[in-house]
């Protein structure tokens, strides 16, 4: 498929702007609209546009790893984020833990964010896997 000129020219913009926005949504998601699902979707749509504009190979190159690997990595990360809960034997799986180290800037370390990153990666992997499979040239 030959993408239109407009699409080809604007492709880098359509890739990197969503990528940055998605990270922003992911990071602030716990306190403001955003989060892993939304962030993942935005990042994935950037990649899908890139695949349509520049071809699937280009998009795969940007992603470095195949979508399925992103998907698996996200699932694994989400799965493991709950294991730290067992520092306290009484706590249930996926009870998130928070640490507020004494630093000049507020830096809340927590497993909830790790879980959300897992969701983010899994969503990116899933959506790109499906979309690439569907829009790919025969």
């Amino acid at each position, binding site marked *: *498929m030959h993408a239109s000129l407009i699409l080809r020219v604007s492709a880098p913009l359509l890739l990197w702007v969503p990528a940055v926005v998605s990270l922003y*949504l992911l990071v602030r*998601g*716990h*306190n*403001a*609209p*955003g*989060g*892993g*699902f*939304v962030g993942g*979707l*935005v990042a*994935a*749509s950037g990649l*899908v*546009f890139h695949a*349509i504009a520049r071809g699937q190979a280009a998009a795969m190159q940007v992603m470095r790893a195949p*979508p*399925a690997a992103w*998907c*698996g990595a*996200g*699932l694994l990360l*989400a*799965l493991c984020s*709950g294991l730290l809960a067992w520092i306290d034997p009484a706590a249930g*799986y*996926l009870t*998130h833990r*928070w640490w507020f180290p004494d630093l000049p800037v507020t830096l*809340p370390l*927590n497993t*909830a*964010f790790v*879980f*959300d990153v*897992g*969701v983010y990666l*899994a*969503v990116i*992997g*899933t*959506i790109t*896997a*499906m*979309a690439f*499979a*569907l*829009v790919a040239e025969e």
Partner: protein
Amino acid sequence: MDVFFFQSLTLPLVVGLAGAAGVALCRPALAARLGALCAVICLAAYVGMAGAVTTAQSLAMPFWGIPSLGVAGGLQLDGLSLVFALLITGIGALVLLYAGRYLQGDPRLPRLMVLLLLFMTSMLGAVTADDVITLFVFWELTSIASFFLVGYDHERLGARKAALQALLVTGGGGLALLAGLVLVSIVAGTTSLSGIIAAREVVLADPLAMPAMLLVVLGCFTKSAQFPFHFWLPNAMAAPTPVSAYLHSATMVKLGIYLLARLNPVYQDVVLWQDLLTWAGLLTAATGALMALRETDLKRVLAWTTVTALGTLTLLIGLAPELSATAAVTFLIVHALYKAALFLIAGIVDHETGTRDATALGGLGRAMPVTAAAAALAAFSMAGLPPFVGFVAKEIVYEAKLAAGGMAGVVASVGFLVNAAQVAIAGLLSWRLFFGPLRPTPTQPHDPPKSMLAGPVLLALLGLLAGAAPSILGTWLVDGAVAAILGRPADVPLKLWHGFTPVLALSVATVALGVLILAGWARLGPRLRRAAPLDRFGPAAAYDRALAGLVAWAEGTTRAVQHGSLRGYMRTLLLVTALAPLGVLVARGGLALPEAAPVDPRALAFLLIAAGAVATALARGLFAAVMAMGLVGFGTAIVFLTFGAPDVALTQFTVEVLLVVILATVLIRLPLRARDARTGRQRASDAAVASMLGLSVALVLLAVLASPFDPRLGDWFGAQSVPGGHGRNVVNVILVDFRALDTLGEIAVLAIAAFSVLALLRGAGRRLRTGT
């Protein structure tokens, strides 16, 4: 092992099951002997327990229960159970021994042995059960065992059909029985049989008493082959002869009689019970006698006389005062002895001569003298000639019938004709078969080996011995069983000689008429066989028609429901989904509108959704439809955004963009007929169904919105988000913290969908395309 264990009522059941396992594992040559040994052990156990059972006393072993449900179960042994247990184990031992020889060399013999032992165990469980649940379970197990045993020769169509028929008739009756027993238990407040009998006033006073009784009677009638369910029994003769002797004459078919007798203390004063049993019994006995004279196959002749005997037993329980109860128990024992013997003899004749056709057989006595002697003894008992126990039984049966009050005339005269037919058939089976002129047979006959002769000889001799001293039989067995049937002891002594009474005159007349029928059998039989309406309009024909109708109906339904049209299925689904909730809503008066809130400009987004939806549905081309669908998505995103759900709005928006892009890309590439292919009529009817569903969903949603709202869950999350989850975006805290496990499950589902897509495209898609 202590004495208690030997007196334990579970012992025979354990021995039976263990024996079944053992027989399955041991060498076929030993199987019969091991099986017979198990039966003898059980017999010995019951004989040992017999001392503890009197007219006033029974053994009881409660051993399981669910107190919270008011269910208590166990085993018991009273006089009635004892009679059955002794018959089951005693005849069982002889039959097992016989079967080992009868089917020698048959590779399926071990299976037969296992089934026979399992059947014996089930029978023992059924007759010693003290609660209706245990009784029912064992009752059904005997039906299943019967199914496999009748279908033993499963490569023959006739055997399969007969097995299925027996199972359907008795199994259908079993369902009725289950319903009846459950109703009775609910009414009585206990599942225990003794408890139900003790609560008879309560049981009878309940409005459910009559339906429950009718259901139980239905179950018993099917099991014991009472008119109009009698037809399965002669067909069950497809089973090997030892099986017919054991299941279909001596024991299993009497299980219905057993339960009728067992419940008689509850219902004996109910007029309907008496009438039902009397008339069904009378009709069954008459049918059996008539049909027996039509047959030429020895086994089918015997099967019809068994039907006659079962009818007589039912009739006697229906009559029920002391005399007839005594008569019933005596006749039950006597019949089991002589009929099992005659079946086994029929098997011997079949085995030795290669035919069971009564018209082709005769004069076998010279070739097989021991068999002939046993046959004569058993037949005399069947004919009711002195000094055999059959005479004792027939005399007291006549006495009971003559004492039957207003019905005595009908009952006794039918009984007279039926008994005359019995005499004729007894003559047929002894005189004609063994002592008449010799007729050539396919193979040269001679007496069989001892293991096959043991059964008939022993059973026939028992008949003679019991006839010589009937009072021993009376005090040992009959009195206890009669006490169980009546709920009180009865004192009716069994005597061989009653003096010159009207009953004796009736007996003499019976024998005379029987001899006359026997003399004319060669001419009477063919004439009866030509009476075709008996076949065309009988219950057997009704069964065939019902079964054929059921199959045709099932095929029709399947064709109508499983029509193979995806659109048709979808239509049905949508219509049901539309009408079911709507029906409930209207029927329950649940239609309601929520309080009308002031309308603001946000409602324009609703309009966008509705317009987009209509445009999608009506779009001519597929591409336009996809675009219109995108409009709906964006309208939805706006709704989420303006109603305080920015996260959801963002998600919806992104997904919609992706979906529209992907759909457009894929659909453009497929060379599709872009237009909706439905005809105008189809469109109209589809639109009607669709509108119905839309209306239904909207009304249900309005009813939901009009009902009071419980905000506790949302409030809890709102209050706990910051202290518990350290996050101010409550939606995100719910997703990653409070309900993180759900979210994990959801991304797992997403991953599975993604991997399925990849697999489908790489593997299955290619396979589909290449058609391999």
